[in-house]
């Protein structure tokens, strides 16, 4: 019998051709692991091109799963086990595999054509170039077809079951429960009993093959994690974002309106919201990004919770209209699912390089609120928060996420909606209580300076508004110099006052120390793990991960002086770092990466250690 080794966590990447069903396989593996009580985090890695020719590197589709018995917050730096359904998959992923890691290779696909298509001269399984890895040769394609010999479906359909065969192998290797997947298959193929039979047979055959084959030396056990009780589901960032808005609209008792134009990696928010028509959600696929935001501005003026979603290049196009929304003082949420720039850049890769654009990407003094989500499930939270702030403060709010957390998934402990996401009080006037003669949109809440929200259809409250400067009391066009000063000050103050209505900044670690790490957005998982690891080894390091960037929580100014040094790791060239230094007179330094890839925990640890050890 194989020996069974217990490990704390393991990273597996399923990789194959676009048509090989690797996304499904990975999802099954992670769902099963979640149900078994493991911590998990996943990341899909689609081909960046159009469905590229079969068998080529460009056509490789991967899905990475990180499971463990501890806290899992990233899909993992390096891969322990690679499932390679063809040579291209092997080649594309080898550099993420740990030295000594496992490769399950579908040897059936390592024929001459595929080997060449992948850009290999010779069969890499035979050249010895993989000698530093543990190889499992599996004739996955042929074995799958053989296992399904008795089932009355054509060979092409049989071949398409090979992903379940591969899944079965990994289930054996990692001691996974086969039942959840069987149930899933039964549900999924309800209308096609033959396919149920076939897929289950493939799954089992794979598992049996792994159990009997001699190449498998050991199997692994990943004990259940210590996970808070509750109901969980897997969620990716884009779905979570969409859902956050769905709940916000419900909590505010408003209709949701999304004006958007498709763009990778933001489009899935539009797709998701379009499904929920029975919430009265209106998704307006506009002719371009400008019309996207402008239609949302229209909807906000008409009393909807209005959104527009895009990514960097599309957000660039919205700058002028954002100024109008600021000038109108209307609630509006703008989502930027960031990707690699500049220009079209690396559209399917992740980056955090649009913070400056969020803060400053408009003409004139045009302040707005900027918040950022930290992980897939946090997208729900921050989408709700963005909506809440927009509605309570009558201001546009920009929500930043990124391609990494938008597509990455993690288990999410489902919140108690009434408690954690309670009713939002918007500022639509109650026409039965207000007097048309005296009520004006320019009247403001004392605490927030938020104006009244008056919308067409309200009888007697008709008013006119534009993007020209407005008289601070009457609301009509004004070119008066001192009025412009007052309005400029007011717009600034209004955003600053949002700080009274957001949580204080939290710190992970002691309130003072040698090094403060400041991060924001989708790097949370990696930065958090790196800091936690160093804290465990006794370093005086703390993490200040920011969700609210403009305005910042009130206590940030108090936190910073208590640390000897400050480092700001970002997937850009130092944007938040500059903001912090300009605002607080600090001398924070940056740790920056521009590779279209997330941080590695190990790299961060090294960088932080370097600073901690540095002679001052």
């Amino acid at each position, binding site marked *: 019998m194989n020996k069974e080794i217990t490990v704390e966590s393991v990273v597996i990447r399923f990789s194959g051709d676009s048509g090989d069903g690797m996304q499904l396989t990975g999802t099954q593996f992670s*769902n099963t692991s979640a*149900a078994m*009580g493991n911590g998990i985090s996943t990341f899909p890695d689609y081909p960046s091109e159009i469905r590229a020719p079969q068998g080529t590197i460009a056509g490789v589709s991967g899905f990475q799963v990180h499971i463990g018995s501890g806290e899992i917050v990233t899909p993992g730096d390096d891969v322990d086990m690679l499932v390679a359904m063809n040579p291209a998959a092997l080649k594309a992923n080898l550099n993420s595999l740990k030295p000594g890691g496992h490769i399950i290779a579908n040897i059936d696909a390592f024929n001459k054509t595929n080997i060449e298509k992948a850009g290999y001269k010779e069969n890499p399984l035979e050249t010895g170039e993989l000698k530093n890895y543990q190889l499992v040769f599996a004739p996955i394609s042929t074995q799958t077809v053989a296992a399904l010999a008795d089932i009355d479906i054509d060979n092409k359909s049989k071949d398409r079951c090979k992903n379940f065969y591969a899944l079965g192998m990994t289930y054996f290797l990692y001691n996974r429960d086969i039942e959840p997947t069987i149930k*899933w298959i039964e549900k999924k193929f309800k209308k096609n009993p033959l396919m149920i039979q076939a897929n289950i047979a493939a799954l089992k055959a794979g598992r049996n093959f792994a159990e009997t084959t001699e190449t498998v030396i050991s199997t692994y056990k990943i004990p259940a994690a210590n*996970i808070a*009780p*509750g*109901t*969980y*589901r*897997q969620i990716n960032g884009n779905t979570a974002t969409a*859902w956050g808005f*769905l709940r916000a609209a*419900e909590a505010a008792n408003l*209709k949701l*309106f999304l*004006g958007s134009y498709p763009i990778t990696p933001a489009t899935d928010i539009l797709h998701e919201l379009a499904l*929920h*028509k*029975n*919430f*009265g959600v*209106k998704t*307006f696929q*506009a*002719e*371009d990004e*400008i*019309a996207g935001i*402008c*239609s*949302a*501005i*229209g*909807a906000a*003026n*008409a*009393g*909807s919770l*209005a959104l527009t979603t895009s990514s960097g290049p599309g957000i660039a196009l919205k700058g002028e*209209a954002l100024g*109008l929304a600021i000038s109108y003082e209307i609630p509006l949420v703008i989502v930027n699912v960031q990707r690699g720039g500049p220009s079209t850049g690396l559209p399917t890769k992740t980056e955090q390089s649009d913070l400056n654009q969020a803060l400053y990407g408009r003409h004139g003094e045009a302040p707005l609120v900027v918040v950022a989500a930290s992980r897939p499930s946090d997208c729900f939270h921050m989408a709700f928060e963005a909506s809440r702030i927009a509605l309570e403060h009558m201001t546009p709010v920009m929500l930043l996420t990124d391609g990494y957390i938008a597509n990455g998934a993690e288990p999410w*402990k*489902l919140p108690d*909606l009434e408690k954690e996401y309670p009713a939002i009080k918007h500022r639509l006037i109650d026409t039965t209580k207000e007097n048309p003669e005296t009520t004006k949109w320019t009247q403001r809440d004392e605490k927030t300076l938020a104006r009244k929200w008056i*919308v*067409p*259809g*309200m*009888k*007697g*409250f*008709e*008013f*006119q*508004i*534009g*993007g020209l400067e407005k008289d601070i009391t009457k609301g*009509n*066009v004004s070119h008066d110099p001192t009025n412009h000063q007052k309005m400029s000050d007011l717009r600034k103050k209004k955003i600053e006052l949002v700080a009274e209505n957001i949580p204080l900044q939290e710190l992970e670690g002691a309130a003072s120390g040698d090094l403060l790490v400041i991060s924001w957005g989708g790097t949370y998982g990696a930065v958090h793990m790196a800091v936690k690891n160093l804290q465990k080894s006794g370093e005086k390091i703390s993490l200040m991960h920011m969700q609210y960037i403009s305005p910042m929580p009130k206590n940030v100014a108090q936190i910073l002086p208590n640390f000897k040094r400050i480092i700001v790791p970002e997937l850009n060239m130092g944007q938040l770092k500059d903001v912090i230094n300009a605002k607080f007179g600090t001398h924070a330094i940056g740790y920056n990466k521009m590779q279209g890839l997330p941080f590695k925990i190990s790299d961060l640890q090294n960088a932080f250690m370097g600073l901690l050890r540095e002679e001052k």
Partner: protein
Amino acid sequence: MSNTTTELPVYKKKDFQSDQEVRWCPGCGDYSILSSLQLALIKTGKNKEDIVCVSGIGCSSRFPYYMGTYGYHTIHGRAPAVASGIKCANPDLSVWIITGDGDGLSIGGNHMIHALRRNIDMNILLFNNEIYGLTKGQYSPTTKTGKVTKSSPYGSIDQTFNTGKLAMGAGATYIAKSIDTDPKHMMEMMVKADQHKGISFLELYQNCVIFNDKVHDEYTNRSTRDDNCLYLEHGAPMIFGKDKNKGIIVKGFELAIVTIGENGVSEKDILIHDKYNEILAFQLLNYSNPPHFPMAIGEIFEKSVPTYNDDLVKQIDEQIAKKGPGKFQDVLFGGDTWKVS
């Protein structure tokens, strides 16, 4: 009028005036358009609070400030997009898009053609003065080729849009035209445009006294317009001219002008206007070119196409009928979940 028996709201012109001082150049054609819409709104039967004027930027786009209705002066070229959002968010509103030849056809051309294509039930008033007024006189997409303007000191080399053809090409379901010197006709056209179910494209030839004075003179000046305007009426013969003795006939693929009473032509030979005939409408738009062919004025074209806003509401109603009104709790706990205890 207090004992009227209809349920329609009863308004006076001043109900549609705002308290803002109207600030166009003295003699600007915009004044009569403003007045015409204020009068037209008395007749459209819409509640004042349900009426919204949305404009871009330009002299013409100052319009909403002067209306007593809800009014949104937006940014340059974007009025149709903002208006689309307003109308979709609240389909009960009566939405008027106010735009100029620069605002609506130059920078705003894309929103214009897509608003026309989608057939959202709104009204577009295009103030065509063939110039950028507010920026003090540059050529626009409707400025005649060859014209000397501030930005074309040796004459513009741009070809012009035929606005009606552009609108039709984009899928407009209603096309009409009027002139700033005929307020009564303008008002009638506005009422009819509002009645059309779907997007209405109403072009108004407007005089800019300062930067393009008299550019439409031939067909708007009271003394010459009868000879250069073809006032169309659905179902009526296409007769025009001071003496009402000129008419249009069709010859193969072409339209031609004839004189009634000459060469044996009588009134019954004259083509009857059919606004539902797209080919005829196209021909009228294509031919309008005073003094060679009179300018077609009035309701040129109409077709019946489902509106975007109706379909939007219908789709929501269908989904609610099918799934029940959405409850987020159900979405949250629906699908694949698991329990940890």
